[in-house]
C-alpha cells in the first residue's frame, strides 16, 4: 500500500494514476478482510476498484492524459499535512487499545445486538441485522444520499447538453 501511495504522488500519467487507485482499493479491501469486515471489503472491491475505476477512465477519456506540472512548491501543503497527521496520531493515544473488550464501543449497544439480534430478527448475519433492521433509518438516509448524488449528476450533466443544443440552433 505504501508503494502504491508513493507511486501515486509521483506518476504524472493519469491513466497510471487510475490503475494505481484501483490497486490501492483492492489492497484496502484485503485490509478489510484481515479485519473480518467482509461486507465492507466486498463493497470496497466492487465500488472502489471496479465501478469507480471505470468512471475515472470515462472522465479521463474527456481530458488530456498527462497531468500539468504543479504551479506551486509542495512545501507548505506538505507541512500542513504532516502537522495534521501528527495531531491525529496524538489523538489516537487516548483511544482504547485495538480489540480491547472494555472499550466503550463494545459495551454500549453491541452486546445487545450480538445476543438478541439472531433471536429477534432471525438473521444470522449480524451486519445485515444491524444495517437493515436496528439502524434501518440510517440506511434509509444513506439510500437517500445515493439518490441525491444521482439526481445531482443528472442535473449537472444534462443541463450542459441542453445549453449546447441551444447554441447550435
Amino acid at each position, binding site marked *: 500500500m505504501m508503494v502504491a501511495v508513493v507511486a501515486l504522488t509521483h506518476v504524472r500519467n493519469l491513466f497510471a494514476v487510475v490503475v494505481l487507485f484501483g490497486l490501492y482499493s483492492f489492497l484496502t479491501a484485503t485490509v478489510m478482510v484481515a479485519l473480518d469486515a467482509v461486507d465492507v471489503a466486498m463493497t470496497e472491491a466492487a465500488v472502489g476498484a471496479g465501478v469507480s475505476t471505470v468512471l475515472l477512465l470515462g472522465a479521463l477519456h474527456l481530458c488530456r492524459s498527462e497531468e500539468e506540472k504543479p504551479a506551486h512548491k509542495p512545501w507548505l501543503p506538505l507541512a500542513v499535512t504532516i502537522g495534521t497527521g501528527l495531531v491525529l496520531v496524538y489523538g489516537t493515544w487516548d483511544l482504547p487499545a485495538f480489540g480491547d473488550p472494555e472499550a466503550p464501543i463494545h459495551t454500549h449497544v453491541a452486546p445487545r445486538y450480538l445476543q438478541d439480534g439472531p433471536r429477534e430478527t432471525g438473521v444470522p448475519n449480524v451486519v445485515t441485522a444491524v444495517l437493515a433492521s436496528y439502524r*434501518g433509518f440510517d440506511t434509509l438516509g444513506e439510500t437517500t444520499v445515493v439518490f441525491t448524488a444521482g439526481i445531482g449528476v443528472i442535473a449537472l450533466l444534462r443541463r450542459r*447538453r441542453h445549453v449546447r443544443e441551444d447554441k447550435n440552433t
Partner: protein
Amino acid sequence: MKNDMILRIVGKLLIPFILMFALYVQFHGDFGPGGGFQAGTIVAATMVFYAIIYGLNTARRVLPDWIVEAMIAAGVLLYLGVGFAGLLLGGNFLDYFVLDADPVVGQHRGIFWIELGVAITVCGVLLKIFYLFARRGPD
C-alpha cells in the same frame, strides 16, 4: 472493442453468471456477507462490462435511460413504502415486527424489501452516472 471475438464470447458466457452472483449476494445477504448495496453495484458493473464490450448504444437498448432513471427513484420509494407499511399496520416507521403475524418472519420480510430498494437505487445511480459520462465525447 466491438469486434474482439474473445471478449464478446467470454462476455456472453460470463454475464449470466455475474448476474446470478449478484442475485445470490442480494438474497443471501441475511446469511453471509452481502446485501443490497453490494448486489446493486455488481449489477451495475455487469451492465458497464456489457456496454464496454458491445457498445454504449446496445447497452442503452437493453436498459433504456427512462428505466434507469425510474430505478433511481423507485428504490427510495420502495424503502419508504416499507416504512409506511409499518405505520399503516400499527407499528412505528420502519417497524418490521408488524409486517407479519410472526415477528421474525416480519423482520425477514422488511429486510428483504428494503435491501431490494437499496439495490435498485444504487444500481440505477451508478448506471446513470456511467451513461452520462460515457455519452460525452471529447469536446
